[in-house]
C-alpha cells in the first residue's frame, strides 16, 4: 500500500549522497578561488599579467608537489586506521642516504633507487612494529621520526649534502609540454593513488581495514599484512618525495622536510579524510595541499610578516573548513526540500 511513496525518496537520497564527496571538494575549490581572488584584488598589477598568473599557478603546484605526494601516502595510512608521524624523517633519511658521495657515484638511477628503497624499508619497519609489535601507530612512528632523523644526522655528519647530479637536479627545472616535471609527477601519483584507492582490491581492503578491522579480519582479509603494506606505501611516497625535494633544493640534509607530518595530516583531513580511519579521498587530499600552498603564495605576494601570516593562516584554516561544511549542509538542505 504505502510502499510506492518510499521509493522515489530513496532515489533522491542517492543523488545527494553521491554529491557529498564532490560537494566537499567543490567547497575546497571555492576556498581556492576565494584565495586567488584575494590575491588578484590585493595585487592587481601581478594578476594583470597572464604569463605571471600561469607561472604562479605552476609555482603553487610545484611547491605543493613533494608534500602532495607524501599526503597521498598519508591518506592511505589514515584511511587504513593508522597515522604516520615519520614521513618528514623518512624524507630526510632517504634524501641524505641518496646524496652520500657513495650513492651519488652510482648515478641518478642509483640515487632514485636508494631513496625508494630506504623509504619502503623504513615504512616496512613501521608497519611491522605496528602490526606485529602491536605498538600504537602514533608511538611507533614517533619513535621512527626521532630515530630516522638521528640516523640521517649521523649519515650526513649534520652537513647539508649537495647533490652534484645534473639529472636529479634537473627534475626540478625540466618541463614537458610546458608543464613542470614535478607537477607531472604529482599528477601521476594522484591518479595512481585514486585508482589504487577506488578501483583496486588493495583500496577496498584499505577502507575495510580502517573502517572496521574486526569485520575485515572476519571477512578473510589479512589485516596485519595489509597494514604493513600501507606503511610501506607511505614510505614509498616519502622516497619519491625525497627525490623531488632533493632536486628542488639541489641538496639534502637531516632537518629537511621539517614537520611534513603535520602538514600532510592536516591536508588529508581538510580534504575529508577521517583521522579515525575508514574514509578519505585522494582528490580531497590534493585540494587540501593546494589550499596550504596557495595560502603561502598569497602571503608572499602580499609581503605579510611571519606573525601576521600565522594569525591569518589559523583563521583561514578554520574558515576553509567552515565554508566546506556550510556548503555541504546548505546543498543537502536544498535537496531536502
Amino acid at each position, binding site marked *: 500500500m*504505502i510502499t510506492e511513496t518510499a521509493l522515489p525518496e530513496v532515489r533522491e537520497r*542517492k543523488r545527494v*549522497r553521491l554529491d557529498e564527496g564532490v560537494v566537499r571538494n567543490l567547497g575546497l575549490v571555492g576556498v581556492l578561488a576565494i584565495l586567488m581572488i584575494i590575491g588578484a584584488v590585493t595585487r592587481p598589477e601581478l594578476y594583470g599579467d597572464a604569463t605571471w598568473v600561469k607561472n604562479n599557478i605552476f609555482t603553487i603546484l610545484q611547491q605543493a608537489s613533494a608534500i602532495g605526494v607524501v599526503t597521498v601516502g598519508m591518506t592511505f595510512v589514515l584511511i587504513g586506521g593508522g597515522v604516520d608521524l615519520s614521513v618528514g624523517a623518512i624524507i630526510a633519511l632517504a634524501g641524505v642516504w641518496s646524496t652520500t658521495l657513495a650513492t651519488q657515484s652510482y648515478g641518478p638511477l642509483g640515487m632514485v633507487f636508494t631513496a625508494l628503497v630506504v623509504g619502503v624499508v623504513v615504512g616496512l619497519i613501521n608497519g611491522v612494529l605496528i602490526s606485529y609489535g602491536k605498538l600504537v601507530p602514533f608511538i611507533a612512528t614517533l619513535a621512527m621520526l626521532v630515530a630516522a632523523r638521528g640516523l640521517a644526522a649521523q649519515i650526513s655528519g649534520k652537513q647539508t649534502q649537495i647533490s652534484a647530479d645534473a639529472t636529479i637536479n634537473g627534475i626540478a627545472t625540466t618541463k614537458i609540454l610546458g608543464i613542470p616535471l614535478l607537477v607531472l609527477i604529482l599528477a601521476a601519483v594522484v591518479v595512481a593513488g585514486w585508482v589504487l584507492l577506488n578501483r*583496486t582490491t*588493495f583500496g577496498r581492503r584499505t577502507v575495510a581495514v580502517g*573502517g572496521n578491522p574486526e*569485520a575485515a579480519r572476519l*571477512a578473510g582479509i589479512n589485516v596485519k599484512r595489509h597494514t604493513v603494506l600501507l606503511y610501506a606505501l607511505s614510505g614509498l611516497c616519502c622516497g619519491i618525495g625525497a627525490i623531488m625535494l632533493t632536486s628542488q633544493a639541489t641538496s639534502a640534509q637531516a632537518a629537511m622536510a621539517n614537520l611534513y607530518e603535520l602538514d600532510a595530516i592536516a591536508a588529508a583531513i581538510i580534504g575529508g579524510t577521517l583521522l579515525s580511519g575508514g*574514509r578519505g579521498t585522494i582528490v580531497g587530499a590534493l585540494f587540501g595541499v593546494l589550499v596550504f600552498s596557495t595560502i603561502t603564495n598569497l602571503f608572499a605576494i602580499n609581503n605579510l610578516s611571519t606573525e601576521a601570516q600565522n594569525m591569518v593562516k589559523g583563521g583561514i584554516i578554520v574558515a576553509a573548513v567552515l565554508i566546506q561544511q556550510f556548503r555541504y549542509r546548505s546543498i543537502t538542505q536544498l535537496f531536502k526540500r
Partner: protein
Amino acid sequence: MSELASETEVVLRLTDVVKTFPGVRALDGVQLEVRAGEVHCLLGQNGAGKSTLIKVLAGVHQADAGEITWCGEPFAPASPQAAMRSGIATIYQELDLVDDLSVAENAFLGHEPSRFGITRRRAAANRTASILARLGHPEIPARRLVRQLPAAGKQIVSMARALSHDAKLIVMDEPSAVLAHDEVENLFRIIRELTANGIAVIYISHRLAELREIGDRITVLKDGRTTAANLPARTTPTRELVSRMTGRTIEYVFPPRAEKPAAEPILVVDGLSREGEFTDASLTVAPGEIVGIAGLVGSGRSELLETIFGARKADTGTVTLDGRRITGVGAAVASGMGMAPEERKSQALLLDEPVYKNMTLASFSGFARAGFTDLRNERAAATRTADTLELRPRDVDRPIRTLSGGNQQKVVVGRWLLGDVRLLLLDEPTRGVDVGARAELYQVIHDLAAGGVGVLLVSSEVPEVLGLADRVLVMREGRVVHQAPAGELDEDTVLDLVMAGSLLEGNPA
C-alpha cells in the same frame, strides 16, 4: 491486568507524528495511545520506524510534524535529559553503555549522586546493587567495568539504568534480543512488577510469542504509519498481525527438508578447547547438512564458532575442512568457510560504506581482475542477493548505517551467498530480524543446504534450531553435553538440557 489497563487513563498520545531523515520518511503519520500500567507492544517489520518512534519520545530526535501529549500536556522533548525529567526512560536497541565505566557509573550516568561534584560512589553502588537485585541479578558487581560483562549482562545494566530514573513510562526496544530463554522470563517478571505499580511500558520485539505473553495491546507500524492500533495482544490472530505488518500473509513454518545429507563430513572438529571458554568440542558437518547448536548465553557457542573459523587460536584440538587444517581466518575463507558473526556492528559492518560493498566484503577480490575491482559486476551481484533476501530498501548504494537492524543482518548473511562458500557458520542469524524476513532467511539457509553447503548454526531460539537443523548439539558450560538428530528432540528436552537439567544427563554426545 489487561482489563485493568483498559480502564486507566491514557498517559501518552501520538497523533500524526512525522519524522524524516535526508531522503527517508521514517515516520509518516504515526498514531499511538499508551495507558498507565499497560504493556503496549509495537510491532513492525525491520525498518518500519519503531526505533525512530521511541527516539522521538526519548528526545533523541525531534518530530517534524504531528502532536504528542504526555500526561495531558503537549510534549516535545528537546533532549534526552528533558525526556528523562518528564519521566520517560528508555532502553535502546543498540547498547548504549560506556565500556570503561563501572556498572554503577553507567546506571547513574548523567544523574550521578554527588556532593559538590564529587561522586558519592558508595551511594551509587548501593543503589545500583539494589536495582540489580530487583532485576534478579545480585551477582553482577556494581563496581565491575561494563566491558567485562557479556552481552546479556550489559542488557541488564541498560535496564538498571532505566530503572534508576523515577519513570512513569519505560520504553524497551528489543530488550529480549540478546537474552536467553530464562532471562526473558525474568524480564517479564520485572515488567509485571512495573505495570503493577502503574508504570506504562512500551515493548518492542519481533517474537510474537513474547507479545502474547507480556503484552496488553499491540500497535502495528508499517513503513512509518500506524496500520492497526490497540489490538488485543492475546487474542488477535497471528495471520492478522502479520498481514498488518507486511501487507501479505506469511506461512511461518520451516520448509521441509527433502534430502538426506551426504554421510562424508566436510568439516571435522576434533577435541577443540580454549581455556575458560569451551572444552573438548568435537563435531562434524556434512555437505548439505544443517547442524544447530543450542545453549545458554555464555555457554561458549560464539567462541567455539570463532575458533572453528580460525578467528581465535585453539589451545588444543584441530579443525579440518575437506581434510585441510584450518589455522586462521585467511585459510578458512580461502577454503570456502564463511561466518556471520554475532555482533554485526562491531564484527561485521563497515557502517559508512554502501550496502553492496558490505555485501561483497568477503568476495570482492573474486570479482576483481588483476587486482582491479569490478564495481558494476559487484553491484549487480549484490543487487541480486538483496532481491533474494528482500532487503528493504532495495537500494544497494545506501550507506548501511541507515538500514534498520534486521536489514543489516540480512546483508551480513548475504555476504556469504556471493562467494563459493561450502561451509557457513551462522551465529544468531535472526537476531532482530522481523517475521517476514526471518521466513526469507530460513528459506535462504535451506536453499544453501540443498545446494550442498554445510551449515553450522548457533541460535538462542530453540524452535529455530529444532526447525532448521538436521542435527542438534547442546552446549552447556563450554561442553557439548548432548547431540541428536533434530527429529528426536523437542523444545522441552532441549531447554532442560540447556539449563543443566538432568533428563538425559550421562548420555553425552
